């Protein structure tokens, strides 16, 4: 082996170890029964496997049943609605050639450029005044809206790759815009729909900031806000329970990421 290759392997092994150790300790200590924890991290798997107990403690303490249901609603419905509304807008801009299309696109896309801190305070005030604060509807509407700009960006890129002749031909046959959209553009876009949906589902599932700001009660707040509350009672429940909580709430998006890694790379390519 050449020296360069050896150096490359050495770099990867050392950095890899630095990255794996926290993951390993995360799993081992999430599986340690709180009684065996004793104030210090454990390096060996415990004699009695405490993961399921810890998960159920975390589940109860953070009211995760309610949080999982709410968050599934926000992430699934928010993702679907964002895909629908964004592709309708992209369709109008690309295929229906709405006047000033690029400007409309920029207006929608502008929603994703600024840091979210810019929206928080007026959103909070508006939500309190309009009785949307701490409601399922309020959270769903917000998550849909925040997912639309990036979704429109991807769908617009995608629709530029659909041959315009297809839409023109259907229109000459008397098909209206809705039929062209539903029967021609949509079937050609299933991959793009899935990409956008998965990315937005993941984003919504992992959001903490809006959950903290716009919701309060256990039946409304999304799952990361519930985990944050569990973390707040860190001292009372102890690290193993907090870690088990972090583990269980991560599973859906973690599995999704590795099941469809290609989709995430495609999403990165889109931003790149």
């Amino acid at each position, binding site marked *: 082996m050449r020296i*360069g*290759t050896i150096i*490359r392997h050495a*770099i*990867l092994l050392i*950095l890899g170890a630095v*990255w794996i150790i*926290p*993951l390993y*300790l*995360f799993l081992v200590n999430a599986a340690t029964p709180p009684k065996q924890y004793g*104030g*210090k991290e454990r390096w060996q798997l415990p004699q009695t496997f405490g993961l399921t107990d810890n998960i159920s403690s975390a589940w109860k303490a953070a009211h995760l049943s309610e949080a999982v249901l709410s968050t599934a609603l926000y992430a699934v419905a928010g993702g679907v609605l964002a895909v629908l*509304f964004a592709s*309708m*807008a992209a369709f*109008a*801009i690309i295929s*229906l050639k*709405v006047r000033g299309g690029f400007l*409309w696109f920029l*207006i*929608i896309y502008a*929603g994703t*450029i*600024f*840091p979210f*801190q*810019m*929206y*928080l*305070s*007026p*959103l*909070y*005030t508006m939500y309190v005044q309009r009785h949307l604060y701490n409601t399922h509807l309020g959270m769903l*509407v917000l998550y849909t*809206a*925040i997912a*639309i*700009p990036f979704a429109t960006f991807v769908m617009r890129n995608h629709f*530029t790759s659909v041959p315009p002749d297809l839409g023109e031909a259907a229109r000459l046959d008397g098909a209206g*815009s809705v039929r062209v959209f539903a029967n021609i553009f949509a079937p050609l876009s299933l991959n793009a729909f899935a990409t956008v949906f998965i990315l937005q589902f993941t984003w919504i599932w*992992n959001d*903490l*900031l809006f959950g903290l700001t716009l919701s309060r009660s256990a039946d409304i707040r999304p799952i*990361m806000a519930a*985990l944050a509350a569990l973390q707040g009672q*860190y001292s009372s429940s102890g690290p193993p329970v*907090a*870690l088990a909580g972090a583990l269980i*709430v*991560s599973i859906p*998006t*973690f599995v999704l*990421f590795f099941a469809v890694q290609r989709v995430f*790379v495609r999403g*990165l*390519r889109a931003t*790149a």
Partner: protein
Amino acid sequence: MAQLTESSASLQNVTAARVSSWSRLSGRVSPYLFMLPALILVSLLLLWPFLRSAWLSFTNFKGIGEAKWVGLDNYRQLFNDPVLSTSMKNTLYWVIGTLVLPVGLGLLIAVASYDVRGGSLYRLPFLMPYALSGTAIATVWQFMLTKNGALNSILGALGLESLERSWLLRPPLNTWAMIFASTWQAVGVSVLLFLIGLQVIPRDPIEAARLDGAEGWRLFRDMTFPLLRPMTIVTVGISLVNSLKTFDIIWIMTQGGPYRSSETLAVTMYRQTFVLFEHGYGAAISVVLSVIVLIVSLLYLTRTLRSS
């Protein structure tokens, strides 16, 4: 009879005219109807709050009651507030740390693992944290970095007791500790981006340089890195914007403390608005943060839009 035919003919004309004007109208209206849901949601929930924040930054709004215009007072206060100068300094640390750590390490890992046997297996540890949420990352690193946490016991076991620290309690160490925690998560994305870059750079110039005897570090410095430049810009842009927006990790690990020593602009804005109810002042901070993010975004946004 003739009259009747005539009138029915004219009726037909009228209907035809109405139909065609209806279809012309719907032809003109329907594109807008397609955009309407997206436009309404984005305007009401993102653009309007954005404009209102910009306006609130010139007021003394406290969350309830009247918002009174105070001109540039909030911005003036911003430059004299010791909390803000700490927050600015920490934000700068995050920017520098992000350039060095997620971007630099990402490049190193991507280049080292590209074309190496077992490369995708080597990359796995760096991708796994990327698939976790910021809140979960913060929970793990809180556990790693507390006083009697895992990092200190690793240092103890290696005989490096002198390096043991209260990682999350001492500024500016707590900020750097959290930058590292964030790197642990974020390096995956730069590895992926640089890999995409490595896959699309032209092979010929590299082969030619290799035939000329360029190898290892020289090949990287003179050929690979310059050819990767477009992707480097994108990765730097994305990483910087993400690090400027970091909230979850700081909020969970230190809440910006102790004594507001580890806040960044994103966290200071949140505390000022939702803990101290100074919505006007918080808005001014978010405007400053937006200006910084915008400048960084323009670096790569212009490229993105031009290429699409």
